[in-house]
């Protein structure tokens, strides 16, 4: 079994996630992607471990936050120097935990799938 590294959003990022971009307010999905999720994901792929994102313990998540973070992970962002990550590779090294909100995993999966389809 692959090694697992747990990242708790409420503890390591914020208990009150914001929306898409920093222009709109604090704790945005783009900020979460570039400073936390993306570097950790790259590390997980390089060092061959599973990154476990624990989504519990927050006030909730706006759709734009989830889309910017998890959709952005697959899409990449040239402006921020983030290269696109293949959906299957990301899925192999990413595990989500969400006991508080039963809909989150399904939504994130949807955003990642959508981002994998070229516009």
């Amino acid at each position, binding site marked *: 079994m692959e090694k697992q590294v747990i990242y708790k959003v409420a503890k390591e990022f*914020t*208990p*009150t*996630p*914001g*929306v*898409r971009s920093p*222009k*709109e*307010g*604090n*704790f945005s999905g783009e900020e979460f992607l570039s400073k936390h999720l993306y570097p950790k994901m790259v590390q997980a792929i390089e060092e061959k471990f599973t990154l476990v994102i624990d989504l*519990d*313990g*927050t*006030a*909730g*998540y*706006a*759709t*734009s*936050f989830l*889309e910017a973070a998890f*959709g952005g992970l697959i*899409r990449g962002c040239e402006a921020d120097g983030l290269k696109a990550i293949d959906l299957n590779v990301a899925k192999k090294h990413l595990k989500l935990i969400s006991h*508080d*909100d039963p*809909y989150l995993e399904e939504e994130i999966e949807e*955003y990642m799938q*959508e*981002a994998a389809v070229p*516009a």
Partner: protein
Amino acid sequence: MKGKRQKAVLHQQKRSKKEAKRKLKRKNWLAKRLLMGLPKRPSFAAYIVKAPQVLSFINEPELLLDFFENLRLVCKPKRYVLLDLEDVTSISNDALLLLLTKLQNRNFLKGANILGSRPKCPKTREILENSGFFGIVNHKFDTGTNPIPVSNFMLAQRKHSKKVQPELAQAVIHEATKHLYGKVCEQPGAFRVIEEFMANTCWHANPNEPATERWWLTGFQGPLKDGFKTWCFALVDNGVGILESIELKGWLSAMDWLGFSKTNILENLLNGKVESRTGLKNRGKGLPSMKREFNRKRIFNLHIITNNVYANLAKNVYLTLNIPFSGTFVYFELISQSNGKTSDL
């Protein structure tokens, strides 16, 4: 030299205070005179706008919009306008929130001085007095950083900002859950709707420039429903409205051009069938997510009013309003019977 300057500043401050006092005195004098039915001095161009008996944006949107339209039409620079509220028998918190936002909107008032009379109905008068309404209309007020004093009225709080404030969204939800469940807990559905509204105001209230319009939020205790406690949330912005900020394409654009009702457009927007004006597939998910939370029964009694469309999702009713509302209004409730909670703190 320094002493002289200080003296001049002090003198100026003294004069400003005197001027403010004089203006307040004149406003109060005029309000009294108008209420007593005495003829106003010819030098005063004062206008009276009568409010309807029932002020509720959810139940009587057109009455309230008609009242605002009458007010808007008479507002001119330096003109005195009296809001005749004497016959108002009920005022809901959502209507009060909207009224207060209008009275602090410089573009709406165009420099008019607004006065307000007290309702005869003691309960309504008490609500208005506790809300700080008379502090705004009958006094010189500052429309700067904190226009509304954050005061409690009917267990309600009003907040405003131009940016998304997640901590604030969480705080108002905690206030609600304390009332509903007797403890602080999270409500991811309500949190999402509030954040989506704030973000919507940030981008859509003025599509050319983000974060130029202010959103307003209030949460208050609602009436018991079948023995269950309720908590209501009302959010409003006075921007251009959702339907004016989107770019329609295809058959929706044709329908709009032909003058068909815009109810279809809002319905399609909520169903996620209207593309974002950015043209990006990953955008435009905010409004559909509000409906989704309603369908998941994590929020209740969702109402959306924007431009000339009134939507009551609880009854699946979409109506065209004769008087448009420039801005966006969202109302929803949390009910103690449904525990859409996630984690207790």
